[in-house]
């Protein structure tokens, strides 16, 4: 899950890099890279990017990880890139990367191998962690952003791309052979492209899933959990969470994210999508209060009855704490809830949970939602956009992404070659369900104003959750707000700053595909 307003995932991710930086330093790899040709041997640097050097020792021991790669070296961009050519063109240039202030030191170490491979110097632009997004906006608005590259919440992609804040990356991706095809379609299309133009590289690739506590739910279900069939429908999920709620012992039936703003919207989207909800018709008319939208709302309100206290204020952090702390018997959240639940230093429910295939809704679709996630971009004002692109390509390469997942730091890989790796699946419980579900993923379009729309709708859903208005009123109010916001952002008469045809392929990628179970 990518929303780390406090910088948790970013920091954890960079800690991984820092670990390598330290390892590289200890093994004598680290020397300052210079433009004058005194750069270390490329193969030696690449050989150092291994499980042993990157993955935390306690996790390696816990799962008996060997030094065998958790990725496919043939698809790992850093092992296929022409570093000699990169060095010859960019050694000595400087790239500024916006990053949370607390991450500055670890990032500096994590980017050591990139500097050694490319000769490109990375200057970190520290921004206070809690305000990195606000500051980024301010920088963009100033028209002279003080950084070349930035990682941010993918829902903002339309907002940042439409005014021209982001540099097009198609040319660089083609020139440097970025393995875009290895990304699952849902990530490539929704985190990368706006109006058919590549402006982002998927950074943190998430999917929302349903997780169950094994012992509690097996007791209720009367036997072992079958990931596809034990909870085949949302009606069944409502039933078993109600049963779990009665058991007491400080464990509530369900955890879900229903705080104001985009949080509540995400959970509603998750459920309503399974009922066949599409947010818009092909003329960009919002269809929130359709039958499918209402069905999703009814289910969400029913589930809220079985949820832990405080869900009206539960964002990602609160939900994660309740799940990993063992306070809920089931959870609707991102896949990393499952990965992190396996790690004893993060979780109190190790070995007592299972991630299941999305429950279905009669007449709907099987389409687990790709919600949130983060992307990485180059700013249009960057004096060195190509070098900045190369830095992002390094940070998002499949080996680093695989190791992030092994470290359960919340930065998720979006590559087929990584999610299909059996060695990695052994250390990430949700990965099989997650990978199989991705071929059917649902996603909301990244439009200008989308973040504002998600906020407005979520505020209304939150009111419905707390009984201030009905579910119907929430969706009607949300619908009205969306129409107004879309008009403000230039959508009218089926036209807009982003064409429906350009986003349509990414909204649901499962059409015509066989179910994975």
């Amino acid at each position, binding site marked *: 899950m990518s929303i780390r307003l406090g910088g948790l995932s970013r920091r954890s991710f960079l800690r991984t890099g820092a670990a390598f930086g330290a390892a590289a330093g200890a093994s004598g790899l680290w020397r300052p890279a210079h433009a004058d040709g005194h750069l270390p041997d490329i193969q030696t640097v690449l050989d150092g990017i291994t499980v042993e050097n990157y993955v935390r020792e306690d996790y390696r021991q816990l799962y008996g990880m060997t030094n065998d790669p958790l990725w496919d070296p043939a698809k790992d961009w850093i092992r296929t890139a022409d570093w000699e050519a990169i060095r010859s063109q960019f050694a000595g240039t400087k790239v500024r990367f916006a990053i949370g202030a607390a991450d500055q030191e670890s990032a500096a170490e994590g980017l050591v191998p990139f500097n050694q491979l490319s000769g490109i110097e990375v200057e970190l632009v520290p921004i206070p962690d809690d305000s990195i997004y606000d500051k980024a906006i301010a920088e*963009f608005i100033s028209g002279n952003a003080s950084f070349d590259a930035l990682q941010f919440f993918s829902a903002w992609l339309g907002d940042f791309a439409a005014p021209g804040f982001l540099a097009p990356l198609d040319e660089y991706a083609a020139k440097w052979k970025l393995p875009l095809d290895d990304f699952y379609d849902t990530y490539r299309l929704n985190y990368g492209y706006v109006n058919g133009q590549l402006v982002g590289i998927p950074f943190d690739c998430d999917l929302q899933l349903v997780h169950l506590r094994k012992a509690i739910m097996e007791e209720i279900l009367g036997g072992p959990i079958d990931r596809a069939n034990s909870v085949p429908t949302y009606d069944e999920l409502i039933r078993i969470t109600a049963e779990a709620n009665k058991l007491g012992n400080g464990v509530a039936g369900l955890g879900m994210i229903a705080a*104001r703003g985009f949080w509540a919207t995400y959970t509603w989207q998750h459920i309503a999508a399974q009922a066949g909800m599409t947010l818009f018709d092909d003329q960009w008319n919002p269809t929130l209060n359709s039958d499918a939208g209402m069905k999703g709302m009814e289910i969400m309100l029913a589930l809220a009855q079985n949820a832990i*206290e405080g869900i*009206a*204020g539960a964002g990602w952090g609160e939900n994660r704490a309740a799940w990993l702390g063992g306070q809920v018997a089931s959870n609707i959240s991102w896949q990393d809830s499952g990965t992190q639940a396996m790690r004893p230093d993060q979780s109190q429910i190790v070995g007592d949970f299972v991630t299941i295939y999305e429950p279905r809704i009669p007449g709907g679709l099987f389409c687990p939602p790709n919600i949130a996630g983060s992307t990485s971009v180059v700013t249009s004002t960057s004096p060195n956009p190509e070098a900045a692109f190369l830095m992002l390509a390094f940070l998002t390469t499949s080996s680093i992404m695989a190791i992030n997942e092994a470290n359960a730091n919340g930065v998720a890989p979006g590559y087929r070659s990584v999610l299909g790796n059996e060695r990695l699946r052994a250390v990430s419980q949700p990965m099989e369900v997650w990978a199989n579900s991705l071929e059917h993923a649902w996603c909301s379009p990244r439009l200008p104003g989308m973040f504002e729309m998600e*906020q407005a709708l979520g505020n209304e859903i*939150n009111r419905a959750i707390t009984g*201030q208005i009905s579910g119907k009123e929430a969706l009607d109010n949300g619908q009205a707000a969306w129409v107004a916001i879309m008009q403000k952002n230039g959508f009218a008469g089926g036209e807009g700053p982003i064409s429906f045809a350009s986003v349509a392929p990414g909204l649901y990628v499962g059409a015509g595909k066989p179910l994975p179970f």
Partner: protein
Amino acid sequence: MATARRRSPGLRKAFPYLLLAPAMLYLLAITLYPGLFAIYQSLFVVKFVNWTWTGLGNYRLILQDREFWAALGNTAIIGGISLALQTLIALTLAYFAYRDPLIRGWRIVFLMPMLFMPSAVAFIWKLAFNDGRVISDLLMGLGLVEGNVDWIGSIWLARLTLIVADVWQWTPFLFIIFVAGLQGQDQEIEEAARLDGASWPKIFWNISLPMLRPIMVVAVTLRGIDITTMFTNVFVMTQGAPGGATETMSYFIYRQGFRAFNFGYASAASVLMLILTIVIAQTVVKRAFRSGKS
């Protein structure tokens, strides 16, 4: 013999202003300019770099915005209750403490809640009420409730959490000012009243308190102005939940500006809030001092 240098009369007149100029310029740059800029921006629909003139359009929309009025109401309710409680508690504590010699030496202890970082305080209260279930456990231990309390699921409970956090942190501000004000009063007046046979509560109520009134008005007004900008507790503890029942004006403005990117709209709301705060503060102070004179 050295000749004394003389400044021209003009320079002599200007000299104090020249000395003040750097500080004045600095203050103007960080207060007046952003203020004027906000007023200017409030007349536009601002979407990042695109500014479209709308005149008073943002103000018209705001005055029709249910969320704006809700936020204003929440600010008045949460702030009003919090301020009343703080004043009452601070005054009560001051009554018992201001003649105590020990208090003089340990005043700093009473200031401690104010010295903690507001975000850290808010986070601890959030843990106590919601995530950590500490208060629920305490109440269950006392037999007052049977299960975990959903503090954020109820409008009034959610508001209560904000009020408790604010009262805990900021009552010392009023307390210390009240104690200082009381301790600064002429003790001979109290002595005279006591010789006339007045009881301690009567002395406090009829003599000390009226004399404290100007200081109280200023302190409560300052605290009141501060409360109207309540943001940190809301941001950390509730984010305006449930359903906007704890969304204060500051959080509303923040949400409009930095979550919805409606900078012109947010600026207009800020301007309205500023006007409202000035009018209320001015009225309170004026009335208090006028009635004090009479």
